[in-house]
């Protein structure tokens, strides 16, 4: 393989250092190894406390690995000799959008918020202006440029947060349960932006989520359980094994289960079957087309 992968993790172990007295020093990640190529769209599943956020923080250099290596675009970020400039270069390449939009905003005006990242990178004023306008446009928030973020809805805040990362022109974005605090409309808007960023702009996406329907939109699904990756494959492959997901304390919605099982049996089913209504419709059309031969 000639191209260096965007993210390569080798035998990554992590232990939170004695922070809270008893019960600490527990290993959270037990030797993860995986590779994410440029332009991939990965969904990372795992129940609460399985170590997803920890992994993301390790990749953002917020935490240092206890053992193992993380290569971002070929640079070993576990190297303690890394200079400040190299650290900034890594963080510029990899952005992260968090769960709570309120806790990641620094500015009192939407466009100032978006400008924060580029300002930290020391980009000239005129170029920051241009990047901010582009980023706000990309998330459909141009008319809110002068608004106070505290007056926006959750979904709008999260779109501003995404714009703040986009303005730094990252190669890869981690979304750490970024939709989980949003209302249905907010989720829909944010998911559409995530899909589009990957499809049209080729941004590598690593979407940490609890929502199977959201995970199903990715091209690859990885399941983290108790600090190990237990499943890694296309959504079809992963969702066709509900018992295994169950063991990881993840419940696949019934309609998704049915659809993926049918798919695994070789039936033609569209990609975006997520609601029970869609599911019923798909089965009806299958029956109608006479494709069903088994009793």
């Amino acid at each position, binding site marked *: 393989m000639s191209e260096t992968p965007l993210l390569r993790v080798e035998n990554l172990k992590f232990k939170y250092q004695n922070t809270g007295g008893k019960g600490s020093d527990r290993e959270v990640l037990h030797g993860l190894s995986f590779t994410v190529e440029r332009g991939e769209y990965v969904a990372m599943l795992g129940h609460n406390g399985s170590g997803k956020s920890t992994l993301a*923080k390790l990749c*953002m250099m*917020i935490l240092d690995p206890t053992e193992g290596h993380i290569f971002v675009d070929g640079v070993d970020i576990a190297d303690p000799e890394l200079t*400040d400039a190299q650290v*900034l270069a890594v*963080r*510029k390449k990899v*952005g*992260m959008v*968090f769960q*709570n939009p*309120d*806790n*990641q*905003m*620094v*500015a*009192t*005006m939407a*466009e*100032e918020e978006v*400008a*924060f*990242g*580029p*300002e*930290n*990178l*020391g*980009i*000239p*004023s005129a170029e*920051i*202006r241009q990047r*901010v306008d582009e980023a706000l446009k990309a998330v459909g928030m141009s008319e809110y440029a002068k608004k*106070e*973020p*505290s*007056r926006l809805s959750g979904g709008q805040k999260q779109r501003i947060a995404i714009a*703040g*990362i986009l303005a*730094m022109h990252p190669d890869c974005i981690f979304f750490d349960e970024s939709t989980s605090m949003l209302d249905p409309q907010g989720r829909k808007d944010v998911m559409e932006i995530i899909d589009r960023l990957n499809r049209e702009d080729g941004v590598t996406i690593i979407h940490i989520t609890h929502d199977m329907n959201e995970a199903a939109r990715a091209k690859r699904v990885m399941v983290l359980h108790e600090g190990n990756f237990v499943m890694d494959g296309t959504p079809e492959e992963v969702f066709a094994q509900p018992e295994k997901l169950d063991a990881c304390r993840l419940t696949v919605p019934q309609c998704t289960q049915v659809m993926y099982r049918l798919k695994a049996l070789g039936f033609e089913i569209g990609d975006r079957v997520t609601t029970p209504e869609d599911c019923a419709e798909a089965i009806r059309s299958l029956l109608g087309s006479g494709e069903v031969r088994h009793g």
Partner: protein
Amino acid sequence: MKSISLGRYYAADSVIHRLDPRGKIVLTILFIVSTFLAKNVISFALLILFVAALSLLSRVPLSLILRSLRGVTVVIIFAALINLFLTNIDQATFLVEFGEWNGRMYGITVEGLIRSGCMVLRIICLIIGTTLLLTYTMTPIELTDGISNLLHPLMKIHIPVDLFAMMMSIALRFIPTLSEDAERIMNAQKSRGTNFSDGGLIRKARALIPILIPLFVSSFKRGEELAVAMECRCYHSGDDRTRMEVLKWHVRDTLFFLLLIALGAGIVLINIFFAWIPYFTVL
């Protein structure tokens, strides 16, 4: 959702609003000095003229301007009374005599009246001028930006001005979030039966504890997450940060600056050349 308006910014598009925040901060200091230099009826007239012009130019409604005085009514009345009765001038012209005490005559004098009037005018001008310049026409963020810009040279002697500015703007940013938190916690505690309105001062203060503790916990949690998010967005202290909006100094800023210098100089000159007009040193 209630919104707390900090500093009562009055949104309008006026010359005063558009002045450079750095300039406005320095102007305010010059203005305060000028009000204290004024010691003479003519210089007070000049001061009043300036404040009136400022008010007109700022397009802030008169009612709002007068409202800024409400907080200092007690101070004004107190200053007026002190100057009225305790003026110690040898040859005072008494209008009303209250009586002698410790070998001194007390009462209302012409000098006392004039001096008290000047003091009241001085305080009124001071308050109106500074609130107009610093709060009604300047957002807290502009104020922070202006101060940090002015203090920027201190970075050379390793005073972390940029960090203070960042702390200040984050504090401003979190005021609405934390006040929402407080409201939510208060409602939660109320629904559990905490009584916030009855009882004496101590009981009321005690009732605040179940609000303050969760509020502290939640703000620490927010703070921790914010720190991580800022680090992920490459935040670091140092001189290599740039800004999207760079403050620009315009001709109008220079003009206002000259105007204030002229005001200060005028007041000093009037003090010197019109010294024969009753000259009042106040407090």
